[in-house]
């Protein structure tokens, strides 16, 4: 978009994942003048998924990138405007909600926050120093660097197991390290991981330290039930233990919980009138593309009601 981009809208949506794009489809079809602000590439986290198998309506599955593109096409078809910028903060100015971005201020009657979440750090010694030297947070990005090498995945949820399955296509061995004695991941993913001969599991185990001079050499592990310590030699470790919401820019504007999530009611309303939240960024979100899309639609319908009041 050019510098001549319009500055005033009915609705501004922050974030171009399933929540934001679904909201955009609804607000645009309601003929509300709508702007979506995305800092990077459209599609959100789902666009990282090689194959999405649980989004209703795609019986054979669909690649995450393609699903994101289709959502975007659908929203743009009905008139959604999109700008690439990073949001610095929000403020209220009389009846308007002002969104300050790297491309200047945009104002709207209602704002839908859908800026999602990103991978959290493990917080283990060695992690920061060895990031990019064997410590990774993106299996689809970095798996090819570990061809025929032993690697570890830390975590037991859907993302950890999906990453382990992807890494098994490249690595010689994939050890899944999980702090509990069973996975949180969806059962069908667990079945696939257990059927993959390259994948092994280390239960009730935490990583105490990541060691290596130039590159990752070993993980110092501790069995949480017995306290027994051990060493695992790996060339890389993929961290997939959890997520943190992208809400730093909202501090001081909206009340956030300790982890940074936004509390909403069932209409996706936040504490501030005319400011809605949708998707992963919400407290207790199911963190699924389809629930995020549902949140986005709900937020859009209620934003429309708010504006017409």
């Amino acid at each position, binding site marked *: 978009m050019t510098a001549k981009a319009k500055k005033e809208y009915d609705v501004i949506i922050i974030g171009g994942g399933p929540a934001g794009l679904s909201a955009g489809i609804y607000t645009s079809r309601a003929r509300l003048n709508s702007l979506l602000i995305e*800092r*990077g590439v459209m599609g959100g986290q789902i666009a990282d998924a090689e194959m999405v198998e649980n989004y209703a309506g795609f019986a054979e599955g669909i690649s995450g*990138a393609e699903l994101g593109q289709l959502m975007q096409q659908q929203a743009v078809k009905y008139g959604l405007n999109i700008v690439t910028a*990073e949001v610095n903060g929000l403020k209220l100015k009389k009846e308007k909600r002002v969104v300050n971005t790297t491309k200047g201020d945009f104002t709207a009657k209602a704002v839908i926050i859908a800026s999602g979440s990103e991978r959290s750090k493990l917080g283990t010694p060695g992690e920061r120093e060895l990031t990019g030297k064997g410590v990774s947070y*993106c299996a689809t*990005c970095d798996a090819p660097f570990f061809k025929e090498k032993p690697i570890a995945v830390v975590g037991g949820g859907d993302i950890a197991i999906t990453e382990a399955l992807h890494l098994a296509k490249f690595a010689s061995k994939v050890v899944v390290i999980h702090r509990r004695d069973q996975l949180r991941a969806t059962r069908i993913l667990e079945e696939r991981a257990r059927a993959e001969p390259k994948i092994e599991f280390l239960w009730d185990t935490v990583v105490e330290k990541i060691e290596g001079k130039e590159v990752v050499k070993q993980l110092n592990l501790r069995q949480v039930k017995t306290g027994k310590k051990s060493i695992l030699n790996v060339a890389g470790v993929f961290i997939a233990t959890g997520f943190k919401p992208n809400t730093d820019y909202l501090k001081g504007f909206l009340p956030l919980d300790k982890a940074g999530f936004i509390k909403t009611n069932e209409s996706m309303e936040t504490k501030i009138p005319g400011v809605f939240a949708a998707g992963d960024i919400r407290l207790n979100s199911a963190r699924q593309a389809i629930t995020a899309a549902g949140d986005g639609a709900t937020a859009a319908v209620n934003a429309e009601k708010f504006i017409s009041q």
Partner: protein
Amino acid sequence: MSKPIEVDDATFGQKVLQSKIPVLVDFWAPWCRPCLMAAPVLEELASEYANKITFAKLDVDQNAQVAAKYNIMAIPNLIIFKEGKPVSQIVGYKPKEELKKDLDAVLK
């Protein structure tokens, strides 16, 4: 308008190591989504830092030699070279304002 240049195993020495001004090399691959996210930001920065820092892109999938030499094990991975030597490295997707701090530090 100054745009990022493409470099490869063959041209790396001449275009990066022998450059008179600092060169930021964006190690990337087509399968890496955060790399695609970083690309428009780097294009903007290439304009803003024109004549001060050269911006270059190296596809690690096609250019294993350079990628191996600098131990690239995660992308996106930005290395800033000054007088033939790496002086700063940024791993992972970073917003524009943070990148600018790193670039300004190199120019000091």
